[in-house]
């Protein structure tokens, strides 16, 4: 039959694409994904920073040699260097030490330059000497034992395994991380709330059509699936927009952070896995929107009709 070959375009029973809640949903999800991506990149950066700190700090320690109190500066220097050599000798004899090297005069001058300014002669100053010790990978170090051995070799030596200041930094970073994770949870809650609200509003707008669908034998699932599909698509589209805005922002923040002196923040970089998580956010938003819309419809229809 020639009439049967006529192309018939199928229209959706529920015209959800054009309804007034669609744009609102897309904008909400775009904002949410933007905030989520930027905050998440912060959390992931802090994580990588903590990891880097742990890696570098756990693999090293510092031995400090207190300066001799001899009033003759030349003698004092000679005594201090002697103590340093004794400590160095001991350190090199330890099987878990990979490398132990005293900081040179130039390095020491650079370290105290912020306090005492340029043009200082380190040899003339009663400042502690420092030995930088690099440990072998996965070295099992008994710090109490090391401190005891060092004190026997020279009473002027003390060990600093950086744990004290590192712990404070870790606590601070952990605090920021908890704050950021709370923001992420809040963003998810607000987005779900917005989807709940838009879905309920849309159900009210399409009440007449839904009643007809029910009278034709449609189950709540039939309606819920249409809403779930629409919400997933809209949220994914909104998520892509949010992501496109977030990526340059993340790069912007990263480049600003790298300009800060100190090298601490520059260690905070995102791995390719981190990026994969961030790029996957629109899909995540789509799934959340789909589930929220589905259960909102099921719940609302029970009360509505």
């Amino acid at each position, binding site marked *: 039959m020639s009439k049967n070959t006529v192309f*018939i375009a199928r*229209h959706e029973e529920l*015209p959800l694409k054009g309804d007034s809640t669609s744009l609102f949903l897309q904008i909400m999800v775009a904002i949410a994904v933007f905030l989520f991506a930027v905050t998440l990149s912060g959390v992931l950066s802090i994580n990588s920073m903590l990891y880097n700190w742990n890696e570098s700090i756990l693999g090293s320690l510092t031995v400090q040699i207190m300066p001799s109190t001899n009033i003759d500066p030349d003698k004092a220097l000679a005594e201090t260097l002697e103590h340093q050599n004794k400590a160095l000798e001991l350190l090199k004899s330890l099987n878990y030490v990979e490398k132990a090297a005293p900081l040179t005069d130039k390095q020491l001058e650079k370290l105290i330059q912020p306090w005492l300014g340029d043009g200082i002669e380190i040899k003339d100053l009663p400042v502690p000497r420092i030995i930088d010790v690099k440990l072998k990978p996965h070295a099992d170090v008994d710090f109490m034992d090391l401190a005891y051995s060092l004190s026997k070799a020279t009473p002027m030596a003390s060990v600093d395994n950086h744990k004290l200041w590192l712990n404070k930094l870790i606590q601070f970073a952990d605090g920021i991380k908890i704050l950021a994770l709370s923001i992420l949870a809040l963003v998810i809650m607000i987005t779900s709330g917005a989807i709940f609200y838009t879905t309920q509003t849309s159900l009210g707008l399409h009440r007449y059509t839904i009643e007809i669908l029910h009278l*034709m*034998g*449609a*189950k709540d699932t039939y309606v819920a699936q249409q809403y779930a599909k629409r919400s997933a698509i809209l949220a994914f589209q909104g998520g892509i927009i949010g992501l496109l805005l977030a990526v340059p922002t993340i790069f912007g923040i990263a480049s600003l952070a790298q300009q800060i002196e100190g090298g601490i923040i520059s260690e905070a970089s995102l791995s390719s896995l981190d990026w994969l998580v961030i790029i996957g956010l629109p899909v995540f938003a789509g799934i959340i929107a789909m589930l929220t819309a589905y259960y909102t419809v099921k719940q609302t229809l029970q009360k509505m009709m």
Partner: protein
Amino acid sequence: MLGPVNNKSNAIIEMQNVGIRYGQGPEILSDIKLSLKKGSFHFLTGKSGAGKTSLLSMMYLAQKPSRGTVSVFGHNVNFANRDALAMLRRRIGVVFQDFRLIDHLSAFDNVALPLRVCGMDEREIRKRVMELLQWVELDRSIQATPATLSGGEKQRVAIARAVINRPDLLLADEPTGNVDNDIAPKLMKLFVELNRLGTTVVIATHSEKLISDFAYPRLHLQNRNLKIFAPNTPVNMGGFHV
């Protein structure tokens, strides 16, 4: 979950002491007792406001009774959950007095609706819908939306939608009220043919001509109650309770 099935009865619809009221208002229908056998054909009559639409809406499961029990296809609707009611509705075709077509859908999509909610294959849907639209002489308007159709054309779309799924029960509220005189007998012929194939039919009408032309028993609503009259018996002859 479906309600308990009453296998002993051959009734498609059974009502026991059914009353219906809206809010705190008085009962619109009281103590309705009714048993419609499989394959029966009845007219439903009564003055405007007598409760015909309320009675029909209980039959197509749009509302539950305020009291009493209603069983459809042997299932007590008081105990049926939402999904079970949906499954029962799939076996019922309804022609509404106000058509209840979906305005943004074409005639084709409106008629296809009951098949789509059942998840039928689109090729089969297309075949069935095209065939039926040709039969009701709407094959030239398949893409037309209800807003562009005349009252009679809308009614034919509504009828096509009600019968497309070959329902076990067909309920029609003034189905020939808006159609031209030449097509009304054709539509009635469709209902008669469906009835001959086993569909139970209830047609609410004010048309005495329709009632006299087709010799089927009449359910008459009067004083909130229901009486049955044999074919071609005037309502002032008394009738009897069902």
